[in-house]
């Protein structure tokens, strides 16, 4: 039951369509990686900046504030300043305002404009009626929330891309860890052969029967919920298949003449493993890596979804999707955008692995 499971049938994967699929998925991956690297710098929003005036804003290409948002923010400020808004006229970026109150207006209260997310610093144009009437010019800030904002008023575009950094980084690091452990373990088992091999593979079989989600939960318990440590936990459970594959390769490679020659020349076992066995197993290792990376990313998002992974204010696609799932009623954008990025990444990696040699998509656990 443990041989790689064929999915795309070799007879289905013709040369041309394979190349097309490969290029398309590479382009998608490159685009997403580039966006995640550069996007947060260009978006103009720190990922943990809270915009109190813009909670659960819908995604749009246009700049905020719009007319209603201006009015609402203004009413809030006026209430806090204990003044009435007498006149409001918007002239491009600048809002001309006139206030009145029963008592002289304390101009220091105008600082509320600076503190809001909607306006810039206010400039007093004129005071009249012994300070009871006040004309002010206030510039409106122009803020774009491409993907809208979350329940805390943070820019979802930036957060999605920052989450992508985390998800991709964890995916790569954990895959690398799984690769290292799996290759070393498998190569040693296969090369040693006999009893050692049987014992080592029996251990793999036993760990395999352990429900891996439990394993991850316990490892997260042991290591704590730190982002660097998640990938250790994931890497520690995902090396099993790699070990199997490399062991199978090592078993056949050690029969080859060049290994016998190296042994005859007195090369040590580690040297033979490093120089001959592992390089010759590179093909299947690389092919399996294409399956491993999406699996690890999925696992990370799964662990984060359960609240065991990356902690706020840092985030990952799993955390964002979990947030979105809690807010589907009314704020569907919170789910759609992170899910789209996650889905596109997984899809691209998956079809990359398929195109590579039409093999295990089935390892989806």
């Amino acid at each position: 039951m443990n041989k790689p499971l064929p999915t795309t049938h070799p007879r289905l994967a013709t040369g041309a369509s394979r190349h097309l699929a490969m290029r398309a998925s590479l382009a998608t991956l490159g685009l997403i990686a580039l966006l995640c690297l550069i996007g947060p710098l260009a978006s103009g929003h720190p990922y943990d900046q809270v915009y109190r005036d813009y909670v659960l804003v819908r995604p749009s290409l246009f700049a905020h504030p719009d007319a209603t948002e201006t009015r609402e923010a203004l009413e809030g400020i006026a209430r806090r300043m204990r003044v009435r808004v007498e006149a409001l006229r918007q002239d491009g970026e600048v809002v001309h305002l006139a206030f009145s109150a029963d008592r002289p207006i304390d101009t220091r209260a105008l600082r509320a404009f600076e503190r809001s997310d909607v306006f810039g610093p206010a400039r007093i144009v004129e005071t009249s009626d012994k300070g009871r009437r006040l004309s002010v010019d206030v510039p409106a800030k122009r803020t774009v929330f491409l993907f809208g904002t979350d329940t805390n008023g943070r820019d979802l575009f930036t957060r999605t891309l920052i989450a992508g950094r985390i998800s991709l980084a964890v995916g790569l690091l954990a895959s690398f860890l799984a690769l290292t452990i799996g290759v070393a373990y498998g190569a040693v088992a296969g090369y040693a052969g006999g009893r050692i091999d049987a014992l080592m593979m029996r251990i793999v079989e036993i760990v395999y029967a352990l429900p891996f989600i439990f394993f991850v939960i316990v490892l997260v318990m042991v290591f704590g919920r730190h982002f660097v440590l998640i990938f250790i936990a994931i890497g520690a459970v995902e090396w099993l298949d790699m070990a199997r594959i490399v062991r199978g390769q090592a078993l056949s490679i050690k029969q080859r003449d060049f290994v016998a020659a190296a042994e005859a020349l007195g090369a040590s076992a580690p040297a033979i493993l490093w120089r001959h066995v592992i390089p010759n197993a590179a093909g299947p290792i690389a092919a399996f890596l294409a399956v491993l990376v999406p699996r690890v990313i999925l696992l990370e998002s799964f662990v984060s979804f359960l609240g065991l992974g990356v902690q706020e204010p840092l985030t990952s696609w799993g955390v964002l999707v979990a947030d979105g799932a809690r807010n589907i009623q009314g704020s569907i954008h919170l789910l759609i955008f992170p899910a789209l990025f996650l889905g596109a990444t997984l899809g691209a990696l998956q079809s990359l692995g398929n195109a590579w040699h039409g093999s295990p998509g089935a390892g989806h656990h």
Partner: protein
Amino acid sequence: MLRFFLSRVATAVPAFFIIVALAFFLMRLAPGGPFDTERALDPEIAKNLRHIYRLDLPLMQQFWLYLQSLAHGELGPSLHWRDFTVSELFAKALPISAALGAKAMLVAIIAGTALGLVGAMSKVRIGPHAVDGAAIFGIVLPIFVVAPLLQLGLGLTLHVLPVGGWNDGAWQNQVLPVTTLALPQIAIVARLMQAALIDALAMPHIRTLRAFGMPGYHIYVHALRAAFAPVVSYLGLAAGNVLTGSVVVETIFGIPGMGRYFVDGALGRDYTLVMGTVIVVAAAVLLFNLIVDLILAWLDPRVRYDSRPR
């Protein structure tokens, strides 16, 4: 066949005990304890609690005691749900999770086989590609994305099905969780089935049947028997996947199954509860793998005679 069965059991039993031991000691490595609260407990009370639950004994002795009670079929008292034993908690939750998982597996096998059959049988060139392409979506979209989308579409917008809850297992409440849980498995089974069927249909014995002028359904029955092997061998993995998925599905749909005990038990350091879930899950997975092995051996005699451990 009996020999094969015994050799499989002989590997499963020690595996079970190693898993139990591994889980027991790994969990104790984790910092924190079951009685940690926001405000530290009075040291005397904490000491008493630890004494009552025998957590003050040496670890090896605790493990031995645990194995003894396990031999009597007892999973011990929950440390967090103070008035319940783990068995009592599971008595309510396990049937729900088991029903959910079994239905999802059944749906996956039937729908996946049907889809694979359609793909492999289709006379048009695009047929198999269509099944393959559709399956990629099923494989790639994580359960926790599919579930809220289904809730939104069928529950909140169309008002056809309830968004969540169990409602004593009313079928309306089961449709969405089972569908969500089954979808990725349907996709994988369909792809496996299709690939295996295309292979099987090209085999010499099928050609012979065709040459004899056998009717179409007859040929497909023979091809299916050969094609079932990879699907059946995947089912062992699928059981694990469904189990993992059910944790998410139960969380999203608010179903009172085993799922919550997984995460809550581990986070609350409820040692006995976590051990209970590990034991149930490990036993289920091992048992399922055993059944899968037996079906494989029944389908393909070569497996029976080559029963050395892999």
